[in-house]
């Protein structure tokens, strides 16, 4: 799935948003980092300036264990909208429920259709798709 510099044709996250930048910086360093409220203790995703539970702006970044479970998944069989995914279909997009309790969208690597079930244990892997962007993906742990 790795890209090759400027030829990478898939959508990329914005790195210029100061609230979300630490997430992508951590990923580039091989860490899955999550924002956590210093006041009420809530770990949340996606990053926001204030805690969605108590609106505190005292947010710290903590490294997640990088493990969780497949909460849901879909095998995408159609390369929607442009040709960037035409060599990838079918590919597996999943919602991962991390051990820290938050859910996020990612994709599963190293699996074939029929091999994924809701509840499968999953572990983060880091995919450096461009010089600037590393996407946290997940592999199923058997």
């Amino acid at each position, binding site marked *: 799935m790795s890209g090759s510099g400027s030829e990478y044709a898939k*959508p990329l996250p914005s790195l210029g948003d100061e609230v979300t930048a630490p997430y992508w910086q951590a990923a580039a360093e091989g860490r899955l980092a999550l924002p956590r409220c210093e006041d009420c203790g809530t770990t949340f995703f996606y990053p926001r300036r204030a805690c969605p539970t108590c609106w505190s702006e005292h947010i710290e970044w903590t490294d997640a264990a990088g493990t969780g479970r497949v909460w849901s998944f*879909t095998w995408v*069989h159609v390369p929607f909208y442009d040709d960037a995914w035409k060599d990838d279909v079918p590919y597996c997009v999943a919602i991962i429920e991390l051990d820290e309790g938050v859910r996020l969208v990612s994709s599963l690597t190293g699996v074939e259709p029929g091999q994924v079930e809701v509840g499968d244990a999953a572990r983060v892997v880091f995919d450096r798709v461009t010089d600037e962007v590393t996407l946290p993906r997940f592999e199923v742990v058997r």
Partner: protein
Amino acid sequence: MTDVLDGVAIVGMAETRVGKLPGRSAIDLQAAAGRAAVADAGLTKDDIDAVFSFSGYSQAMLMHAARVAEHLGIHPEVTAQIDVGGPGTHHSAVMAAAAAIRAGMCTTALCTFGENGISVRTAGRGRAPGTLTGGEDFEMPYGLLAMISQYALLAQRHVHRYGTTSEQMGAVAVTSRYHASLNENAHKRTPITLEEHQASPMISTPLRMLDCSLISDGGGAFVVTSKERARDLPRPPIEVLGWGMGTTHHIVSQAPDVSELGSWEACRLAYARSGLVVDDLDVVYVHDACTISTLMGIEALGMCGEGESGPYAAEGRLQLGHPRPVNVHGGMLSHGHAGGVFHFLDAVRQLRGEAGPRQVEGAQVAAVTGNGGVLSTFSTMFLASGR
């Protein structure tokens, strides 16, 4: 109970041809539906002093309601574009119109909807230019691009929790197409079989092509005014007996599980506000972006138990002839998807007794549910003839 919707009625409505209408802009379709709805109400453009609209996504536009008004040569005091996600927006337009009428801000509101999705959106490769959907940073980089894939993630939860099968979802598609075969304005009218559903290409598991709503060109509109004014108008006024809404999230990673979506709260509130029970419903319109949406919708309305919608559909109980038939115009799965107002319009048609071969005999109360986003925002309305 005093309610914002007391004292107002839907007094006119219209839909344009629905299907593939190349050469027609979204604004043209909305304006055409608007003119026809005003005529249906027995009014003229000079009677309209408020316009509420939703641009939809195929030709998204800022200040859209002002554009509709301008296009129609109307100079209303009140305009607003309303967007709570496509097929829930018409309910919010009714609410906005009712609130404005009751507050004395206007007397008669025109509400317009419509898209030229198949002729522009698909030709434009599916995205309204510059329109952010919320998933840009944390979902789209993973290839979560299509709405149907986002729905598929919640459909898979239904499969996981309740054992819902592709064949049960297929029963929804087959029934919708049968209903559309009775509707001469439906986009897709040729009946399909369960075998054809099962043979249709997988789009995003567990959803096949025939689980997905259409992308259509078409416009729809309705007129809201006071019940007092409605007495002088030719059409049977349609009133709102109860309503409810619920919002839980925007993007799919933030969604709760399927048993906690806003649909449940929206339906609970609508029943509580109206005093109705499920047995009071005569005809039901459930948002059907895909077949799983229909299943989730009838559960939230209490037509079957939680998780029991698959067997309910497989038994054929969504079809005309059964109590509380569902989406008897064909739904977005077969009549057409151009922003989602057609469910609401067909409910009005049924309550007027004008649904022809699809008429539910003696229909007194209709339920209409809408949702926007990825099962993100929900609305439920119970409508009845005011005469």
